[in-house]
């Protein structure tokens, strides 16, 4: 069962979050305005990302990441009997041109560079095919998607989406369940950490912006990323402990009350509908 949609309705960030939270495996193909991307996932982690039909060999990836010179790259490729990454990696290690961690870091940087490009696309369509995974003989590196989403949100063009998600800055933020352990495993920038450390019942988003010395739009952008990664959400009125009593009364007044029937009425409804 494929998941199809349009980036205008359901953004790449939202799709990545879905894949991450539901720990999905499969292939996400995105058809942007003038180029396409293919992202591969296993158990909610990003394994590989290619943009524009590119299919770089490991030597090219490392060369682009500045970990290999052109001459070294040519020498290794001349020795290889195929363009498979595993053989290239073995030759690189044997020649002492790259270490295991150079290879992992180079591939990781390549994956991130590609996936970040997708964040800049606001138009296009996507199809996610669950459980379809084929990357030939490419070396893959599992990348945590929450990290990708938070860092990628910095590259989003549309300031509209931030305002839509967070129209009012005088609200409190709340961490979602399990956010603490996920945050500890993430790599984030300093500004993101500052926002995380100030978030919670003590500060509104506006106060965070003042205390962290970030502009309103900067804070919106960071909070948007953290929200997209399901780490934070805007607190509901009852989740804010120190709301003043007049605040609370105002909110209560705005609430719509349901009908409070007797238990007997509900059980009669249940019995009748069961019999239908």
């Amino acid at each position: 069962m494929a998941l199809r949609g349009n980036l205008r309705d359901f953004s790449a960030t939202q799709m990545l979050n879905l894949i991450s939270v539901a720990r999905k495996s499969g292939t996400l193909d995105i058809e942007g305005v003038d180029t396409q991307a293919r992202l591969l996932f296993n158990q909610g982690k990003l394994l590989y990302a290619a943009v524009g039909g590119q299919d770089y060999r490991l030597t090219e990836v490392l060369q682009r990441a500045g970990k290999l010179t052109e001459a070294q790259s040519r020498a290794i490729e001349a020795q290889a009997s195929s363009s498979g990454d595993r053989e290239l990696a073995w030759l690189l290690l044997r020649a002492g041109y790259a270490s295991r961690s150079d290879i992992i870091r180079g591939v990781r940087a390549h994956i991130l560079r590609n996936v970040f490009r997708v964040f800049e696309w606001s138009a296009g369509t996507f199809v996610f095919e669950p459980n379809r995974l084929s990357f030939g003989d490419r070396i893959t590196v599992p990348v945590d998607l929450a990290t990708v989403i938070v860092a990628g949100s910095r590259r989003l063009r549309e300031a509209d989406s931030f305002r839509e998600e967070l129209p009012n800055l005088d609200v409190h933020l709340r961490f979602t369940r399990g956010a603490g352990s996920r945050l500890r495993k993430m790599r984030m920038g300093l500004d993101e950490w500052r926002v995380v450390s100030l978030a919670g019942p003590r500060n509104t988003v506006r106060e965070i912006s003042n205390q962290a010395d970030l502009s309103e739009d900067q804070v919106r952008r960071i909070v948007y990323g953290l929200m997209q990664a399901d780490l934070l959400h805007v607190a509901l009125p009852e989740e804010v402990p120190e709301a003043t009593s007049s605040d609370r009364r105002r909110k209560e007044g705005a609430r719509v009350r349901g009908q409070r029937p007797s238990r007997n009425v509900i059980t009669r409804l249940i019995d009748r509908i069961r019999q239908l």
Partner: protein
Amino acid sequence: MQNVKMVVTGPFSAGKTQFIHTISEIDVVSTERRLSHPADPDKSQTTVAMDFGRLTIDDDLILYIFGTPGQRRFDFMWRILSQGTLGLVVLLDSVRPDTFREAREILNTFQTYADVPYVVVANKQDLPDAWSPEDLRVALRIPRAIKVLPCVATDRESVKEVLLQLLYTILESMDGDS
């Protein structure tokens, strides 16, 4: 004689009229209007005011089921309709991600303002490429405490199950209160 009511809401074309039609013992009293330029060729009508169905429970209890109109006229109607309702059914069109944004707005409004028990329904599960209830939960950020139920609104058993689940939720909310 006691009357109670439930409300079915959701984005444009989610299947609200169909849902009520499937369970109602009377023809759905609805105010349909032909769509002048249907986005979906199978969809020729839209509800402009509200739907209205009925189910007689016993000699002195009647359940009325109201459906809100789609087409973004939701904001002012839902308050009027939700006042004094037993519970709400929020229908989603599982094959139309272009309606998710509107669905989220509806759900956010309930979370902020409504003290009414509700369930979310992933309708049209019979169609290929329908998003699963669990994917919709993540996509629309529906809290764990809220049920997201699969449904095919044209199927009576499926609609019955949704109503029962809503009633169980209402019973649970009574336990919480007492």
